[in-house]
């Protein structure tokens, strides 16, 4: 395991996504933009151990993985901007990123990356022995039937397949604990998957766990399930209303007051005291999304940086400067050729 290399992968992704965030807020990117900020250690720990010919089945939050897997940052950025010279000619966008060359596919349909991973693994087993497939998803997706079917199918067909569950405890605004029966890794294990749970903010833990899991499945011992806990520092997608509420309560909540008032006093429904409690509960969503975004102690990059700074502060600064410059270069390249240079009309 090379901390420096992993830190480089993670920081590159982080700075790239920070830049995407800026462009989104500037109105140059459309749609619902889901960032992987906070998940970098999971992506880096796994992707750094993949080999050519391995495949990626991603969900709606796949930018870090694709960057680390070698997709040109400029191609991604252009795609997000909807440009003809983007990765998918501007036709896919950030939820539908595809690269045949990298055997990488994405989906905006929750749960779909499960079967997608199975299909890649089937092709791997038959056409490219020794290669594996990886299926990426959040913990919310594990309640989708097709995902659970995929676990079963992978076990039945004994496929070279690594399932990676990035568990941030939330699906959009819903705490996943409240909508799940049983225990997640136990459930996966009951399908016959070998499982391992790691702290997704700890690059070492992820890397070691991924190593074990990947070796297991690559050597033909069947599918494996890596569960990695993490936090999203940019909420479900950028600018989600509940996050804006938390950050700027006055601006965001005041427009809601007339509606809330009507809901409090309108005929029919539960007693007033309960309604007050409901106001708390529904606005509490905002608070919890804020608390998620403030748990910076769980930031995989800060944690790693701390370690490396102690090791060789100069080297660290040099590396960071390089990455920063590289991202800036990509941004300049992309924006300078942005024919329109216009906001989304």
């Amino acid at each position, binding site marked *: 395991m090379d901390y420096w290399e992993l830190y480089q992968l993670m920081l590159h992704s982080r700075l790239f996504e920070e830049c995407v965030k800026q462009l989104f807020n500037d109105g140059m990117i*459309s749609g619902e933009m889901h960032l992987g900020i906070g998940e970098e250690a999971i992506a880096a720990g796994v992707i750094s151990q993949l080999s050519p010919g391995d495949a990626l089945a991603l969900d709606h939050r796949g930018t870090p993985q694709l960057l680390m897997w070698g997709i040109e940052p400029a191609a991604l950025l252009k795609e997000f901007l909807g440009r003809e010279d983007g990765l998918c000619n501007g036709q896919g966008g950030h939820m539908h990123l595809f690269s045949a060359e990298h055997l990488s596919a994405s989906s905006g349909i*929750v749960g779909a990356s499960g079967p997608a991973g199975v299909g890649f693994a089937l092709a791997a087993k038959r056409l490219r022995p020794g290669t594996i497939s990886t299926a990426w998803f959040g913990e919310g997706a594990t309640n989708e*039937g097709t995902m659970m079917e995929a676990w079963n199918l992978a076990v039945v067909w004994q496929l070279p397949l690594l399932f990676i569950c990035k568990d941030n405890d939330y699906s959009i605004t819903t705490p996943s604990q409240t909508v799940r029966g049983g225990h997640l890794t136990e459930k996966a294990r009951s399908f016959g998957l070998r499982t391992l749970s790691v702290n997704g903010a700890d690059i070492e833990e992820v890397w070691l766990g991924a190593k074990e899991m990947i070796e297991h499945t690559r050597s033909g011992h069947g599918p494996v399930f890596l569960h990695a806990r993490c936090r999203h520092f940019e909420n479900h997608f950028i600018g989600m209303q509940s996050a804006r509420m938390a950050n700027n309560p006055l601006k965001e909540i005041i427009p809601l007051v007339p509606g809330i008032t009507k809901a409090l006093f309108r005929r029919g429904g539960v007693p007033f005291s309960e309604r007050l409690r409901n106001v708390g509960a529904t606005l509490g969503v905002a608070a919890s999304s804020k608390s998620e975004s403030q748990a910076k102690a769980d930031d995989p990059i800060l944690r790693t940086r701390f370690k490396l700074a102690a090791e060789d502060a100069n080297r660290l600064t040099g590396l960071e400067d390089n990455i920063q410059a590289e991202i800036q270069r990509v941004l300049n390249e992309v924006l300078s050729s942005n024919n329109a240079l216009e906001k989304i009309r």
Partner: protein
Amino acid sequence: MSVMKFGDAIQDAIAQSMGEDPRIILIGEDIHAYRMKLFIQFGEERLLATPISESSFLGAAVTASMAGLRPIVDLTLVDFIAVAMDPLMNHAAKLEVFSGGKWNAPLVVWAACGGGYGDGGQHEQSLWGWLAHIPGLTVAVPSNPADAGGLMTAAVEHDSPVIFLEHKMLADYWLEWMGGSWRETIHIDVPAEGTVGPVPKKWAAIPFGKAAIRKEGNDLTLFSVGVGVHQSMEAAAVLEKHDVSAGVVDLRSVSPLDVETICNTMAVTGNMIVVDEDYRGFGLSAEVAAVALEAGLKFNYRRVCTNGTIPYARRLEEQVLPNTNRILEAVVDLLDTNLPI
């Protein structure tokens, strides 16, 4: 009469119905957050948050409705029906026939639909014609706040399954989510007449299968639903300036279709253009023509529909989705004229 936003009207109508009928429940993902006002008024006993598992909670809603509840399933986006089509197609829709007419499933599937904000083809479909193909399903697509509340009221009162589609470009809170309202630099084309408008003091059901003639016209008739109605109105206004009198019919429900209004207007103008944000082939645009043909009418015909999978880039999706320009081009083509438009 007061004035309401499109999304508020729907939720206001639901609040009225829920207040009157304790059997009505709302089921869906993030429902406590997405339907804040209803949640405050009715709480978690009436608004049931779900895991991400559409097929099972829609399936459950079917039998729950058979056993006396009146569930409204909030599916978020209609695109997600693809993971939950079976309860709708093979169960809810078929129950009345299978049971010999003795049982039915009074459930509402409420979903947002439509594109125009650069979200890509897995999140911007319309699918109303696709859903209407299945016998036993009612499909309603309102174009303004008054119809939205009135059709939702009809949906919850209806004794068999209804799909209620709210177009995202009409519903304020979707734009809010998508960043259309808070990223000041973003321009999304939202038809003003559709997003805010007068609504009745008390909601009453608007019957399914009754179109609304938004504008009379003698030369041709534009048929549409949802955002397409507003694009049609815009096109008709342009045409008016060139002395072309275009009628606009808002079908309001895709199934059942208001065959009478379709035929009556066709008998007058003899020129039909269907503006249909659903996919071009095998859908609403063809069906409107077919029912008029079946009635023995002869007419000229064009359609302006979504041509293929919707790409991500705003620039590209505008070429694929219907819009006012494409409607005007179709008119020029149909009338074989040279209107300088």
